[in-house]
């Protein structure tokens, strides 16, 4: 369950950053990304996927959330 900081980059895309893993990747797809909820399965630029229970209402970025690695 890595603790992940999600923030927007200059182009407005979401970045997925795990300090301990030294991993910073663009989020390419989010399962739920509506006005009421944000979360579900999150796919990163390098193909890795992580899961978080949908958060309602959507969080304000940047924020630190706990994700689960999807095998």
């Amino acid at each position, binding site marked *: 369950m890595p603790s992940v900081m999600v923030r927007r980059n200059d182009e407005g895309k979401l970045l997925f950053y795990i300090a301990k893993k030294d991993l910073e990747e663009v989020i390419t797809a989010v399962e739920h990304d509506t006005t009421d909820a944000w979360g579900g399965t999150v796919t990163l630029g390098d193909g890795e996927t992580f899961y978080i229970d949908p958060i309602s209402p959507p969080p304000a970025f*940047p924020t630190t959330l706990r994700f689960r690695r999807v095998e």
Partner: protein
Amino acid sequence: MAAMTREETQNLIQEVLAVYPEKAKKDRAKHLMVNDQSLDVAKKCITSNRKSLPGVMTIRGCAYAGSRGVCWGPIKDMIHISHGPVGCGMYSTMGRRHYANGTTGVDIFTTINVTTDFQEKDIVFGGDKKLKASFDELEKLFPLAKGYTVQSECPVGLIGDDIESVSKVKTAEIGKTIVPVRCEGFRGVSQSLGHHIANDSIRDWVLPTRVGKDDGFTTTPYDVNILADYNIGGDIWPSRMLLEEIGLRVIAQIPGDGTLMEMEKSIHAKLNLLHCYRSMNYISRHMEETFGMPWMEYNLFGPTKIEQSLRAIAERFDDKIKDGVEAVLAKYKPQWQAVVDKYRPRLEGKKVMLYVGGLRPRHIIGAYEDLGMEVVGTGYEFAHNDDYDRTIKEMGGATLIYDDVTAYELDAFVKKIKPDLIGSGIKEKYQFQKMGFPFRQMHSWDYSGPYHGYDGFAIFARDMDMTLNNPCWKEIKAPWLRPSPAETQAA
């Protein structure tokens, strides 16, 4: 020598690796790459931030060096206590040229070495008592110090002293900020973790002190912080002058020539300007999350990059700053043009190899290019993947990139590539000078500097010219080994 092709560079890497045993070869191969600008992510081609290979020479530092020396060292009105045996404390201060304005013992303490000098009995019975006593002593000796940091050395972590509790007790007693930093040298693979730990200690022990309190600080819409400029040779001063000239108000310099008060008030800024991404991105990320303060990287080495950076900074503000930037660019154009006109003919086409840490392997490339020089190889001591992502775009195609390069590898690369100038640290300096290569220390600017901003660029150009075109390089070969005039004529 002419620029190498991809294949040649690849062969060079293989050739250099050939001397290693199989296992070491496999490991080291992952840390060397031929640059390919089409790549977006470096991690498939280069591995970084891994433990150095036992048995080879590396020039990395330790977590203590990263925290005590790099991140906390330049904070000038605090006393940084090296908690542990005397050795680390001795080597920690002012080996690094982070300049500070002020009077030693009154408002600056950066020139003072303080260590608790652990002895055998402290290892056996614990060093907390000694730490407490040292605070009392320091309060008597330097009552004007604004705060203390406790920088733990290896043994403190090994015996498990509770420096946090001592700090809390003493903070309550003397009413000054005391920051315990758990930066024992054995942590992590390089000084990089020390930067992270230092950033975390700023986050936990310094920034919260004023959150939610009205400290009567008047803010303006143009408040910025300069983060991670360490004022090496006075670097932060020309940077700050430029930023102020375009109309911004710099409210905190962290840590170069900075104070504890500035760090505390930095939470009021509108934008964090991050110079060394590697060492202080952690705190900028934290401040973005907690205080909603955006951050951006900038680069003030060489006129091209200054122009790009100032314009990018202005994008974040209104027209006042944008006009300010244009005015500043126009004002300094004749100044840097004169520098380029003078030195470019003398330096044009020369090849440079760099091996430094932090931000310099990519940030100074622009300054060299402004002088018509080409960087043919670059590498970091302690970078992570994201640094290489940023480097790939800066470097030319088919150039060499090396991570945590060993003394042997760097030697071998230099012998093959034969650059006209090498930029690295003190440990490489004399070795390469004896081999007949012009060399500049790019950690400490070789006792020169500043190199930031337009003023710094003039000094940078002069220094490079002074080193490269020094007549001594012609005298490297012993007179009896030189070809005689007759031979030269025949050839």
